[in-house]
């Protein structure tokens, strides 16, 4: 396990609540990013990120330390998001008005507007993937996790991750082409 995480874990077990806060600060942005890609909007992602850390807070005393803390946190996040999604029959609600990309302030030129539009199309395409496929794409593309780690998080074989990623990328290529999105 990551040496810094191990120190924080031991401090937390020794009764230092601030060690847990340090873990939250370290991983909250990654967890939020995964949740936001999975759920499609800020409100749901913010709530899910809260719930992930509450679950982690309850379960951390029993965490066995055999995996990395972040692998464990991602597993909680993915399960929670899959669970939330399965309870909603509608497609994820996307932030349509909100910028999906960090754009500079000031009057928007045509190119930026086009960039925003493409960002929306890409988000919709990712949101349209079956939930487990979406989770794998998010963990790989946006968190750069190795296939082996993704397999551990998703509870499947590395071969499944390989095949699923290939299928997902081909599907996304088709969807983006249908929407008229070409190479950058």
């Amino acid at each position, binding site marked *: 396990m990551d040496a810094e995480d191990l120190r924080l874990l031991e401090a937390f077990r*020794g*009764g230092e*609540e601030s060690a*847990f*806060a340090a873990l*939250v*600060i370290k991983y*909250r942005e990654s967890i*939020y*990013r995964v949740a*936001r890609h999975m759920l499609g909007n*800020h409100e749901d992602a*913010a709530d899910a*990120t*809260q719930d992930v*850390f*509450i679950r982690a*807070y*309850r379960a951390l005393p029993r965490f066995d330390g055999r995996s990395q803390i972040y692998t464990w946190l991602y597993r909680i996040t993915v399960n929670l998001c899959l669970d939330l999604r399965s309870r909603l029959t509608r497609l994820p609600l996307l932030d349509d008005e*909100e*910028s*999906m*990309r*960090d754009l500079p302030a000031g009057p928007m030129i045509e190119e930026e507007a086009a960039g925003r539009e*493409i*960002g929306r199309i*890409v*988000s919709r395409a*990712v949101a349209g993937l079956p939930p487990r496929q979406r989770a794998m*794409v998010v963990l*790989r*593309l*946006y968190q*750069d*996790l*190795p*296939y082996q780690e993704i397999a551990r998080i998703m509870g499947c074989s590395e071969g499944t991750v*390989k*095949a699923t*990623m*290939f299928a997902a*990328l*081909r599907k*996304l*290529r088709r969807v*983006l082409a249908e929407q008229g*999105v*070409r*190479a*950058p």
Partner: protein
Amino acid sequence: MTMRCQEALERLVEGLTGSVPPADREAVIAHLATCARCRQEAVELEATAARLRESASFTVPPGFWPAFMNRLTDRMAQDRLPLLARVRRWLGSPRHAWATAVVTAMVVIALSAAARLQPRSATSPDPSLVRARGLVTETMTVTLPSLAEMLDIWRAGMTEVDPHLDALQRRSP
């Protein structure tokens, strides 16, 4: 698509979406050198991966993270309360009076044994205190006032105050 193509493209996707070992990369390049169909597919998959990565960043509203931490801290505090309430109710029922007495006695025995067996060193943290930290939880000191009292007496003999035990006792009623 042949099995070799499938395998090559799967590896290609792994490389396009993140990092892969150099050996895998070379195997893919070797296949692409001989297979025009996969070369065409590779170009398109690469463009797709680039598009997906490009629209990856999100913004959060200003002040979001401090508010997030406050809410989380509140929820963590609330999370501890129902457990205490449950334990208090459990301890309040007469059929658990014996169990409470036994638990208290065991804790007292364990703590005094720990204190007797481990001689204190002047420089390093007292091992008996370290051991006691593992034994005494906040729930125990709050729900068992006699234990808190006993800790006071036990600690009176110590020159060095353990901030953890100190904090626990300040929190207990």
